[in-house]
């Protein structure tokens, strides 16, 4: 089921929490919502799940609009709120039963759905405990299970992996990827590597506005076309001299010194200086220990776009 967000605007007093946000997501896409704290990720998600209404703009899920068919949308959307609120005094099974019932799952289908969710989310060993007694990771799984219990076509997960240990993160990530094959998934995070690994597409949002939208690689390429090379050499004499020599190459724009005889060499836009660097080493009689091209990391993209 597709999700279309059109010119979404949400104001709190003077502040525009979400400012003219538009995007559209196709069925089977896993989209990562990325942004610093307070960027408007959660607000956008709350609007999509009909918890709040926008000041103006519209969200369409399939054929339905949040403005006039909230009841229909709530049936088709599964939502894991930020900070994962749960009824801590309920047992896991009771809570899942309650969630299924309240989402309108037919009573004959409920036991099957619960069994499936317990299975998928790995809750088997903890299913009879009270939610309050579970560790954070298991609570998170319960949160995911309740979001998916009615087999929604759209899943909205607000920071699904926060508070999990690395192993659990890997599992949840795998689960989300699996789900993303047939469902539309929107998840938010401020952990970049996670979004890059799980999502087909990344939307970076800052101060309520979308600042970037595209695949991880596209974003990385789009940011900075300049080549950055790390070069490690063995030489005699002062580093200043080497630096000067490196800057002497026509295509080099900037040289930064690093530890242990390594330098970061940034070329001018559109140019490559690897060949020249090698030739320089040969000419000067330096021993070249390493020469590697630096990938622009998503972190850099994020930093540059949100500062």
């Amino acid at each position, binding site marked *: 089921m597709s999700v279309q967000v059109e010119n979404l605007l949400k104001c*709190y007093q003077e502040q525009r929490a979400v400012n003219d946000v538009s995007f559209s997501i196709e069925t089977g896409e896993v989209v990562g919502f990325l942004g610093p704290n307070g960027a408007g990720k959660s607000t956008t998600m709350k609007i999509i799940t009909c918890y709040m209404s926008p000041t103006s703009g519209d969200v369409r899920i399939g054929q339905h609009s949040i403005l006039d068919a909230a009841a229909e949308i*709530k049936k088709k959307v599964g*939502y894991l709120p930020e900070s994962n*609120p749960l*009824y801590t*005094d309920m047992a896991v099974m009771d809570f899942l039963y309650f969630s299924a019932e309240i989402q309108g799952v037919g009573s004959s289908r409920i036991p099957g759905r619960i069994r499936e969710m317990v299975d998928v989310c790995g809750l088997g060993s903890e299913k009879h405990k009270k939610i309050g007694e579970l560790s954070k990771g298991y609570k998170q799984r319960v949160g995911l299970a309740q979001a998916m219990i009615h087999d929604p076509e759209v899943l909205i997960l607000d920071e699904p992996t926060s508070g999990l240990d690395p192993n659990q993160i890997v599992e949840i990530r795998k689960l989300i990827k699996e789900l993303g094959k047939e469902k539309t998934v929107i998840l938010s995070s401020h952990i970049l590597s996670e979004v890059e690994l799980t999502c087909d597409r990344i939307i970076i949002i800052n101060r309520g506005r979308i600042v970037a939208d595209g695949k991880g690689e596209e974003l990385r390429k789009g940011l900075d076309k300049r080549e950055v090379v790390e070069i490690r050499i063995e030489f005699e004499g002062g580093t200043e001299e080497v630096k000067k020599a490196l800057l002497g190459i026509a295509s080099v724009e900037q040289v930064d010194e690093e530890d242990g005889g390594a330098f970061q060499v940034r070329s001018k836009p559109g140019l490559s200086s690897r060949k020249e660097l090698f030739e320089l080493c040969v000419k000067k009689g330096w021993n070249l220990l390493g020469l590697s091209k630096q990938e622009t990391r998503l972190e850099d993209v994020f930093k540059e776009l949100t500062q």
Partner: protein
Amino acid sequence: MRSALIIAKRELKSYFDSLMAYLLVIVFLGLSGFFTWLFGSNIFFLGQASLQVFFNVSYWSFFFFIPAITMRLLAEEKRTGTIELLCTKAISDTDIVVGKFLACLFLIFLSLFCTLPYYITISYLGEVDHGAVWGGYVGIYLFSASYISVGVFASSTTNNQIIAFLLALFIAIFFQLLFSVVGQNFQGLGGRIFDYLSMGTHFQSISRGVFDSRDLVYFFSIIVAGLYLSRFTLSRRIWRS
């Protein structure tokens, strides 16, 4: 309606799991039993086969108990954030409010049901005015329903249970006492209006076994107004800006 019942079921389960329901029933039975049968102007002192004493005790104990059981209903959900979970499920805000109201209503029903032995006992002791007893039960039930509705509303306005409790008591004390005091000090139309607003007037008239539409309208107006306002405060999050 189906969703409201699911909410009510969960809420009741939580009352029983936290022992609050048992506590309510036991304390209520203890208090009302003590004053009805053992202490002060009890049934034996009055020498009448009537449950009037019991209803008066209930009238005051529920005044304090009901805010205590309603205070957590929405305030707790707001504090822990589970309200977000609930409001994004396929149910309406009305279902949530009505479900919570029904859960408390059932608790009160249970407490009153446990006092049926009182009725059976006095009917062995003497000639009982059955109309007055049933009237009393209906009256106390409607009275409780009104305060539950007020309590749900108080709980919807805050995320602090203590504030919800005090607010519910504050609103209820107007109906319980203040309106009737003011009503007695006014002449003419003003006095009649305040007298009509007083809970005591209607409760007494119903517990005499007289079902007057004015009393029923009074109780149902409070119930509906309370629930409507709760739903309104709950829905305000949608338009908050």
